[in-house]
């Protein structure tokens, strides 16, 4: 059983098209390395940059690969004003960026798929209202919607809770700005599935509508959802970085890649280029490879588009 699954996977079109595309393999390696770096950052990083006891102010502004003038300590990618190792801050920032990205897409997926199922299966005025809201939201750019939601949510949370809530508010904002794509696709697929015999049979034996939606229709509409999820992940990572860069995202106490770039820009003109450049290059690699991987996945899973 397991053996046949493995051979089937190895034989599949999917893997074949993956092995044929050098670009896809290259981006996969980059994404994999970045994911591993983020996941195991506490073990890879030289120290926890946000644990004050591991910092030495004398190490501030060390250039990459050069021993510090006072302490003689060496940093691969240099250090920032407080003596934090840039390599470690990048790993921790990456961890946060990816966490927010995955959580936001998961939230958008759950919300969008349920809304799409309800709009497609139940229909009526409930479905019409859901799709009308989706249409209106779609006329505005997602980043603007996310900023507004962030602003409103920030206004509602009490002042002393803002710092610790910021990450969850960010996930909420990005997720809410991104559910429409899922809802539209799932609704379309549900409208098709709804009239098929297996659904009518399930209805005939008196299954609850919620049961039919989740157990019967959902598995049959999941294909396109996975493609949208990958592309959404790239968009969510970019949205998170942009919001954090604008200063309306991750707080300075828990910086993501976007926050690091925002901080680094301040040191650009005093000659400490490494504080900006290395986080920027990491984000560049991440955005580019996730995007390329998403494009490839869309082509590979959607033979009609080829």
């Amino acid at each position, binding site marked *: 059983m397991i053996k046949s699954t493995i051979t089937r996977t190895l034989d599949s079109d999917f893997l074949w098209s993956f092995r044929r595309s050098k670009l896809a393999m290259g981006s996969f390696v980059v994404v994999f390395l970045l994911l591993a770096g983020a996941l195991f950052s506490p073990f890879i990083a030289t120290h926890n940059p946000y644990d004050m006891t591991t910092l030495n102010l004398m190490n501030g502004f060390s250039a990459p690969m050069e021993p510090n003038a006072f302490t003689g300590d060496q940093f691969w990618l240099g250090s920032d004003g407080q003596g934090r190792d840039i390599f470690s801050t990048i790993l921790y920032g990456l961890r946060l960026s990816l966490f927010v990205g995955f959580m936001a897409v998961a939230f958008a997926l759950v919300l969008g798929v349920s809304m799409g199922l309800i709009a497609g299966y139940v229909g009526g005025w409930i479905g019409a209202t859901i799709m009308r809201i989706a249409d209106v939201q779609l006329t505005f750019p997602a980043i603007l919607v996310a900023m507004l939601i962030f602003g409103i949510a920030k206004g509602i949370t009490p002042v002393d809770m803002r710092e610790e809530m910021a990450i969850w508010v960010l996930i909420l904002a990005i997720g809410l700005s991104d559910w429409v794509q899922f809802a539209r696709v799932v609704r379309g697929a549900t409208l098709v599935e709804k009239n098929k015999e297996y659904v009518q049979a399930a209805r005939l034996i008196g299954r609850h509508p919620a049961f039919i939606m989740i157990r019967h229709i959902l598995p049959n509409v999941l294909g396109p959802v996975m493609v949208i999820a990958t592309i959404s992940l790239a968009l969510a990572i970019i949205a998170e970085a942009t919001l954090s860069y604008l200063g309306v995202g991750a707080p300075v106490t828990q910086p993501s890649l976007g926050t690091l770039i925002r901080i680094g820009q301040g040191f650009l003109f005093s000659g400490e280029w490494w504080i900006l450049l290395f986080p920027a290059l990491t984000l560049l690699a991440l955005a580019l490879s996730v995007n*390329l991987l998403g494009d490839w996945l869309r082509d590979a899973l959607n033979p009609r588009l080829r």
Partner: protein
Amino acid sequence: MFAYAIRRIIQSIVVLLVVGLVAFAMFRFMGDPIDNMVGQERSTVDIERLRGELGLNDPFVVQYFNFLNNAARGNFGISYQQSRPVFDILLERAPATLELAGVSGLLAILIGIVLGVFTAIRRDGLAANTIMVVSLIGVSLPTFLIGVLLIYLFSVELDLLPSFGRGEVVKIGGWSTGFLTVSGLKALVLPAITLGLYQMTLIMRLVRSEMLEVLRQDYVRFARARGLPEKLIYFRHALKNTLIPVLTVTGLQLGSIIAFAIVTETVFQWPGIGLLFVNAIQFVDIPVMAAYLMMISVLFVCINLVVDLLYFAVDPRLRDDNAAVKI
């Protein structure tokens, strides 16, 4: 046609009313604005006086009515952060954003069309392929990252262009323009490229695919057979027929340029409306947020309405009554 237009306009008004309600709800229920305005030293008498001045003691319905009434006349109240009328601040900031958006839009259209035609004509050439790959990278990178990297290259390393602000501006009436001074023009270069890059690649790819389609048509082949010069065929015969979809997309992108100006303005500290909005969110300055929300919604709803009505006027297939209901 008439019924459709009416239905579409009513829909737009409903959307604006809903957005207005969101804006008002933000205005009314988010935190206590007084906390954001006064220090701890203020006496309760002062605070009560301020509360009365800002109309925060009125009943809900009165406040909602006042809000709508004032918003319709361009009065969005007083900024919590700057203690000045929001409308004045918006008016003062508008020229910067409009100039930036206009220049980037123009750049995007001109360069986008030229590169699109070029990559379509030399579709297998090395230069054209390089442009296509670079454009793919341009599309997948976040705007602010492009801006930051441009600053690093052109302001820090090469020291050619300024990295922030508008340079010197000249006041003409109520409009402050950066077009008339050298420093103003120099300051415009990097922000305009950053803001216009995405739209430029979009237009370029669109023109390219449309051109490739058109160049296959019989009338182009006939023009070649007549021995017309290549230049004439490409620009007179082919390009003209690609422009309709390009114009539609450009129209729809107009709103996005103004919305994405938020990011570009923050990168370059460009003193426009977008930077104002970002600062408003950071300081939870609700009147400014509400005003920006209303302004941008009117803009987007109008653009969408115009584009939809134009489609309807241009495409006879949509005039079928059943189709109109679906839209």
